[in-house]
């Protein structure tokens, strides 16, 4: 079973699954991604996204047309399943949790941003999404793919060498953090996702956005 991060280097084009209930936004994000040299599949709901991934049947991260999905970019506010709920389902799946997920939202609400990042979202983009946002996301994903790959190999090696000093640098953030939107976000060093300098830089960038 292949994992998204490892295959990134061998794929010539990243395949992005874009999820948005707005027809206009689907068209725009598709174009933004194609211009950034991605293969794009657009779907109109979280349910369709899960169907495309084959998540219910745990077939692996191959979409129905056989292309591996390297990144999922989803709108937050959607009827039925929200982007946040989709994010959670993906991050709690052993097959798909390595796929980076980016959330888009027209509403720049700090608690919302924090909850998404806590659940393991790569980035939170404020709509309307611009070309520079998409390019930055693609660069971050490529960078992440390389560093995560290296980290994983180091951790595996270390496990062989010394079992007692296991995983303070574990790259899979599967521990669930209770998200309480009303309280200020505590810094949680137990998860690699929130303790990386890139992550706090992202939060700072997002706060300055408006």
């Amino acid at each position, binding site marked *: 079973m292949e994992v998204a991060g490892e295959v990134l280097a061998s794929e010539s084009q990243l395949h992005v699954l874009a999820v948005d*209930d*707005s*027809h*206009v936004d689907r068209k725009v994000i598709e174009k933004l991604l194609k211009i950034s040299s991605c293969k794009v599949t657009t779907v109109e709901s979280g349910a369709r996204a899960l169907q495309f991934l084959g998540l219910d049947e745990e077939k692996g991260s191959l979409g129905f047309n056989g292309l591996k999905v390297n990144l999922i970019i989803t709108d937050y506010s959607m009827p039925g399943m929200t982007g946040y709920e989709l994010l959670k389902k993906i991050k709690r799946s052993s097959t798909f949790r390595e796929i980076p997920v980016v959330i888009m939202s*027209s509403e720049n609400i700090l608690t919302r941003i924090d909850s998404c990042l806590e659940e393991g979202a790569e980035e939170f983009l404020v709509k*309307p999404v611009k*070309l520079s946002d998409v390019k930055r996301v693609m660069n971050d994903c490529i960078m992440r793919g390389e560093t995560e790959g290296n980290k994983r190999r180091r951790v595996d090696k270390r496990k062989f060498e010394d079992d007692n000093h296991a995983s303070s640098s574990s790259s899979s953030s599967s521990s669930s953090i209770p998200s309480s939107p009303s309280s200020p976000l505590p810094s949680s060093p137990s998860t690699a996702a929130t303790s990386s300098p890139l992550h706090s830089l992202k939060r700072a960038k997002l706060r300055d956005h408006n």
Partner: protein
Amino acid sequence: MELVQIQRRLVDYTKSLFMEGFLDAQFLQLQQLQDDSNPDFVFEVVSLFFEDSEKLLNELTIALDQPNVDFKKIDSHVHQLKGSSSSIGAQRVKNACIAFRNYCDVQNIEGCLTCLQQVKQECYLVKNKFETLFRLEQQIMASGGSVPTIELGF
């Protein structure tokens, strides 16, 4: 009219739309995405917007006409309209939607009705503006010219 004159007219017209607040920077983003492989991209996206907005405005009219107004539903529709207008850079429509949502939040029916009229008006106005814009572009293309791009910071 000379090609150069039509091109000049298009540039001036587009600039005026920005000055008058009909369009914002997001529209320029859309134009940047248009290329030879997809020369009608902006037209297609804008057309999609008007298809969607017509449906949403009809739904809103019906929803506000109910004996028991469902403000949650109305808010959801206005949110959608706000989102798509924002995505194409239709600033005045977007702002009208923001005002609409405020009245929705406090469940003020009269306010909502006024805002609905406002949003309809803004959609109508910007639709006419776009039609003029696209017509000028077509004239330029028909004369064998290329559509001039607007630079930011004019």
